[in-house]
């Protein structure tokens, strides 16, 4: 299945401590271009921390992260000096979508999307607007371009956040439970946008509890527990015949609660 050449994301032996808490315990992962990787696992297993380490919102305690040729290494709780200088380059390779949207409330929908391209990348305004409108059409919000987020639903805000991240043309999109804060009737519209992105060949790492989405869209599903990647495989294999007892137990509980479609 990894027909797309070299991995675009390469994580090696990533560790993260919060004080005395050893949250990530040696994670290694390779993600290939155009691949959709879904990470599942119970609360507190370190999924968010892992995603946040990938764009250095959290600094890893030790380990190596490489995204599209940008390498950042940490040891003994610190980024290596030459890695620190590359921190922002690494960030620009990723786009992040948060559980609670974090759209900019003082900016309109369009302004949310053009802000970073103009300010960070120095894209001329007309060009940024043109690109933003294209993205807003894609996420179905072109008619809301002049509205402030306070007037929008959670699903609409999350779609702004996705367009905002895409506007920076990242190599990898990181989604941290993008639908967990949404009312059930709004989840579908966000998942639909994500599915479109996947079909277009966007490389994505998605943390989610939406097992239906994982089953349908993921190329690879990873079960995470206690700060390690326990088991990985194509969705059919993970959902129908998981090998590790921990994965089996987790899925059994999810089936019980009726969340596995």
């Amino acid at each position, binding site marked *: 299945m990894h027909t797309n050449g070299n991995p675009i994301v390469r994580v090696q032996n990533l560790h993260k401590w919060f004080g005395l808490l050893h949250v990530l315990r040696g994670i290694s992962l390779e993600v290939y271009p155009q691949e959709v990787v879904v990470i599942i696992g119970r609360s507190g297993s370190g999924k968010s921390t892992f995603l946040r380490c990938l*764009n250095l*919102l959290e600094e890893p305690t030790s380990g190596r992260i490489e995204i599209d040729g940008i390498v950042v290494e940490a040891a003994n709780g610190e980024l290596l000096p030459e890695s620190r200088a590359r921190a*922002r380059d690494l*960030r*620009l390779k*990723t*786009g*992040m979508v*948060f559980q*609670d*949207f*974090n*759209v*900019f*409330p*003082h900016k*309109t929908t369009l302004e949310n999307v053009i*802000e*970073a391209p103009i*300010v*960070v990348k120095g894209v001329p305004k007309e060009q940024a607007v043109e690109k933003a409108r294209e993205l807003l059409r894609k996420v179905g919000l072109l008619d809301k371009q*002049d*509205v*402030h*987020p*306070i*007037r929008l639903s959670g699903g609409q805000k999350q779609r702004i*956040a996705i367009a*905002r*991240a895409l506007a*920076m043309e990242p190599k990898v999109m990181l989604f941290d439970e993008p639908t967990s804060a949404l009312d059930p009737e709004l989840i579908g519209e966000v998942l639909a946008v994500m599915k479109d992105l996947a079909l277009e060949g966007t490389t994505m790492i998605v943390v989610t509890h939406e097992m239906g989405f994982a089953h349908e869209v993921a190329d690879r599903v990873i079960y995470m527990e206690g700060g390690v990647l326990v088991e990985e495989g194509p969705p059919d294999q993970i959902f129908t015949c998981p090998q590790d007892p921990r994965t089996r137990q987790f899925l059994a509980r999810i089936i019980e609660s009726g969340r596995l479609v």
Partner: protein
Amino acid sequence: MEVTNAPLSPESDPDLAVGLALVRKARRARLIETAKVGVVWLVLLALLTAGLLQLRFSPQYVFQHADFVLRGVGTTIGVSVVSILIASVLALFGALGRLSRNPIAQGISSFYISVIRGTPLLIQVYFIYLGLPQIGQQLKALGYPQLANVFTLTEIQSGILALSLNYGAYMTEIFRAGLQAVGHGQYEAAAALGMTRWQMLRRIILPQAIRVIIPDVGNQFIAMQKDSALVSLMGVWEITFRANRLARKDSRFIEMLLVAATLYWILTIVSSWLQSRLEKRMAHAYER
């Protein structure tokens, strides 16, 4: 349930009629309350005036010379406006210093705040007015005339410097609270988009923090207009200085102090009114 698109009217909707009546009644009650308070104010003012007239207080003198004091209002407002602007800049950097992880920034800002908050404004005024020229003279004696010039300020410059430095330190807390009131998620979203700390601050955090900060800065401005009376000690021709000057010359202390007090009072009332209007407008700032 039946849904109609006809506009609701009190005739067609008994609930609406009851609601409207209640709202009207509450509004009338509030108006009457306000009127009563107003009457009490008028009575107090009348009593005060009557009392003063008993004491050989001369209204003629007030009317003849109020003009002289009135001409200081512009100076008072000017000094206060410029000072609050400089103080806001100092407070912003003070707050950034306190929130920063850089030990130099943290050290400078905590030192500044500690010194200013730990000493009386009056001492600071004297220090700037009397102390700085002394430093200037000594620098000149040491052979640094250019540097000495920096320490030689006009009265107005000294006044603005004293007020700005003092208020800047106190307002640091306001700016810090404002910056911290912006949710953590906003910082993270901006960082994830690759913004530098400065871009984040300027484009994302400050515009949101301003909403929290403005009302408090307004309060500080209102307080400063009155503290600016202290710069009369430096010979700035503002309200207090002018009132004091006439009062001493003609021994009309009550008259002139009353004029000055009234002017400050009016300034405060007008500023408060402007501030409440600004706050109302800002409450709708994100809506269209």
